[in-house]
């Protein structure tokens, strides 16, 4: 396929994805009881479109399956099959197979085994009262032409009794080729002139085949006074060379109205020519054995224009943009932000106050916000795989799970949507595998036999909270703790709070699954989830109540790419602290910072004592001559464990930095939220405050008013 066609096909696959989403939503709605005409029509259209495009690009298996699926949908749409729960269930299964077929057509998955689904679809079809058997596919021809289209012999259409195309092909086989010339009589009816048709074009086409007008019958022509310009009075007779195939002649009359006079016959009659001179009128044509008779159904009168006026809001004009273009734009905006900062630095304080600079900053910020919002999309996309996943999991584990979703329209950066897919998958699988009990267990515990998973997304301030909550058995803390001790993650006698035990699930190398179930995949566990989330600049929280359920929360930053930061210096290196985490900075007086233990310090601040960490210690860098506190600065940062001080050498300045991900070419590193490139080209690491000072790294709790 040419590159151009590749691009068009890529768009087709995008459309397939959208269509599949629409269809799934519609089918889910139907399963939940909403069987309105609009919903059903939406599902039909989606599958119909997929079928159409699949045929055009030559995906035979996908075309075939979607065609069968579409037949059932057509019947449901027309009211001939009732959308009972059983029927809807069959359609949902068919939908899953359809998705697999699309993936196979894309080359990202093997061909699915659709025999069972097809059989189920057939049962639905044959089970209904009025039997109209599935109309067969036009026979596909093997080779595609230069454009990649699978040609469909137009002859198939010629079995249409409504006269759009005449019956010719059946006769052709009976006639030897290259025999005597054809005589063609063509008398267009009044109707033949309607609908924009131009009979003369047909004549011209016949002439193009080598035909010649040999006569015109103008008997029907009235006098000028009675002439109706919209009527037709002529009958042409043409002679067409015998070498032309009858089908080709018949083709010319493809669109001619049925009540016109069209006669095609050989002049000399030595051949059987049994069906030679038959006027082609609307008649049920003889059919080939392979095609079942198609009874012409009553034609419903076209709905009058008045009835078909609907109140529909015009959809918002949208435009497709390649994501790479948006990324480039975002990069440029980031550079703009940096240059703006550097420019501001160069100005004298007086100049910095002039109106142009804040104005420039404001405009830059607005552009930045707008570009960021371009990348923002409803998080629904990330949730779209979940229903299918749950259906598969339910089938495999025998557990019944209902899904509730909240806040699907919460907008998040596209990068977030791409990256939370896997973590979300893991969490859902975990919830079904370990959280939700079997129906029997649940009933024994006084719960409903079906478990519920609530998937929600919420924006609070500059952060997005994505939660997976189940109403299952909760975390078995004794077992988790025992496993952690066994794996050497914690000491046997360590005193751990419930929250700390819960967090152990995310420790590297931890997995309670004795058998790495087929469902939970490669055996990677929650530690990968946590590192994925941290790579996005977020974190994972776990809360669990034994017997009632567990909730995993992913807290993610709203915007990914640009950070308001404080650049600090430590041991010759520059680091960036997210300004959002900084409370204040303190130049300690002598004695204000005191050692609490050999490994930790304390700073006294307005009557409170806050723990102080030296970043060099946290990072494990060799401290060649650590500075005295009085020569350093302590930056107080906010963390889950309360305010903590970080000791640095100096503060350089505050600026907006563009976050460059570390996990693009490396992997997530605990304690780092990425890196940034400063104006002079050097790299400064961005610190993840929470990871540095919170969690298992710190067991220090702030003390109030400790008397010296």
């Amino acid at each position, binding site marked *: 396929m040419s590159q151009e066609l590749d691009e068009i096909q890529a768009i*087709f696959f995008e459309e397939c994805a959208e269509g599949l989403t629409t269809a799934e939503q519609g089918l889910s709605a139907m399963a939940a009881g909403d069987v309105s005409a609009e919903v059903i029509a939406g599902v039909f*259209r989606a599958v119909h479109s997929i079928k*159409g495009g699949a045929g055009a690009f030559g995906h035979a298996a996908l075309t075939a399956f979607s065609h069968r699926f579409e037949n059932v949908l057509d019947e449901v749409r027309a009211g001939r099959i009732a959308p009972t729960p059983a029927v809807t269930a069959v359609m949902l299964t068919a939908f899953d197979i359809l998705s697999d077929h699309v993936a196979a057509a894309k080359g990202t998955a093997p061909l699915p085994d659709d025999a069972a689904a097809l059989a189920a679809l057939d049962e639905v079809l044959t089970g209904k009262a009025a039997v109209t058997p599935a*109309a067969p596919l036009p026979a596909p021809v093997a080779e595609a032409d230069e454009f990649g289209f699978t040609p469909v012999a137009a002859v198939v*259409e010629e079995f249409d009794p409504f006269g*759009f195309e005449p019956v010719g092909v059946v006769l052709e086989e009976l006639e030897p080729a290259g025999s005597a010339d054809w005589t063609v009589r063509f008398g267009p009816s009044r109707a033949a002139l309607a609908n924009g048709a131009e009979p003369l074009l047909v004549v011209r086409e016949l002439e193009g085949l080598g035909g010649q007008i040999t006569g015109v019958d103008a008997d029907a022509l009235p006098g000028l006074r009675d002439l109706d310009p919209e009527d037709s009075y002529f009958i042409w007779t043409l002679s067409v060379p015998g070498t032309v195939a009858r089908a080709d002649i018949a083709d010319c009359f493809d*669109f001619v109205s049925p009540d016109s006079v069209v006669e095609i016959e050989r002049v000399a009659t030595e051949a059987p020519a049994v069906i030679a001179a038959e006027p082609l009128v609307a008649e049920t044509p003889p059919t080939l054995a392979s095609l079942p008779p198609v009874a012409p159904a009553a*034609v419903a009168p*076209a709905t009058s*224009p008045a009835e078909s006026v609907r109140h529909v809001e015009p959809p918002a004009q949208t435009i497709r943009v390649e994501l790479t273009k948006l990324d480039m734009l975002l990069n440029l905006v980031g550079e703009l932000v940096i240059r703006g900062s550097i420019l501001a630095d160069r100005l004298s304080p007086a100049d910095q106050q002039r109106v142009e600079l804040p104005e420039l900053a404001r405009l830059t910020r607005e552009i930045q916000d707008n570009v960021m919002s371009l990348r923002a999309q409803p998080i629904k996309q990330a949730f779209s795989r979940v229903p299918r996943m749950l259906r598969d999991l339910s089938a495999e584990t025998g557990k019944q799970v209902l899904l509730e979703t909240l806040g699907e329209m919460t907008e998040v950066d596209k990068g977030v949507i791409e990256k939370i897919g896997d973590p979300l998958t893991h969490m859902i699988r975990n919830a079904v595998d370990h959280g939700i009990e079997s129906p029997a267990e649940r009933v024994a515990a006084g719960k409903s036999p079906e478990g519920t998973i609530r998937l929600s997304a919420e924006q609070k301030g500059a952060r997005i909270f994505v939660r997976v909550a189940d109403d299952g058995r909760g975390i078995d803390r004794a077992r988790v703790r025992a496993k952690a001790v066994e794996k050497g993650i914690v000491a046997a006698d360590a005193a751990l709070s419930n929250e700390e035990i819960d967090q152990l699930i995310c420790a590297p190398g931890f997995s309670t699954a004795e058998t790495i179930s087929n469902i939970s995949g490669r055996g990677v566990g929650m530690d990968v989830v946590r590192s994925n989330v941290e790579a996005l600049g977020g974190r994972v929280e776990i809360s669990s109540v034994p017997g009632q359920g567990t909730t995993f929360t992913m807290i993610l930053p709203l915007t990914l790419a640009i950070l308001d930061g404080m650049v600090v210096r430590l041991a010759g290196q520059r680091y960036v602290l997210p300004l959002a985490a900084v409370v204040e900075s303190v130049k300690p007086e002598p004695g204000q910072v005191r050692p609490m233990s050999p490994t930790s310090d304390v700073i006294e601040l307005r009557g409170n004592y806050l723990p102080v960490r030296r970043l060099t210690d946290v990072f494990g860098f060799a401290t060649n001559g650590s500075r005295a506190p009085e020569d350093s600065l302590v930056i107080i940062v906010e963390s889950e464990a309360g305010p903590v001080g970080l000791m640095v050498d100096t503060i350089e300045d505050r600026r907006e930095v563009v976050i460059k991900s570390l996990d693009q070419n490396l992997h997530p590193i605990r304690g780092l939220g990425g890196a940034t490139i400063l104006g002079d080209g050097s790299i400064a690491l961005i610190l993840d405050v929470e990871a540095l000072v919170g969690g298992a790294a710190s067991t220090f709790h702030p003390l109030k008013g400790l008397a010296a």
Partner: protein
Amino acid sequence: MSKLILTVDDSASMRMLLKTSLTAQGFRIEGANDGAHGLERMHEVAPDLLITDINMPRMDGFELIEAVRGIPQFRGLPILVLSTEFSDEKKARARVAGATGWITKPFEAAKLGAAIRRVCP
């Protein structure tokens, strides 16, 4: 001046395929993504031929054809339906609505060209 064809289909990939095929045959192409949009475009571009799909949101092909035929300027305009469907009911309905002809997808480029020449002077 080459003929201008307005193609109406809610699938962008299908419109692009048509455009590729038809511009190679010397036609100029404009597009619309559903019936309502198609109606607007009819006024804007006044094509020599309308090719439309049937199943589209907002306004389907039948409604579009009826609406177009209701406009005096377009009463004699050639209109072709291009659809994966091929049932007799649908074809009859199209004829009643005012279509000049029906082509079934998937289509062969040459046949499409022939069909166009058959209806478009």
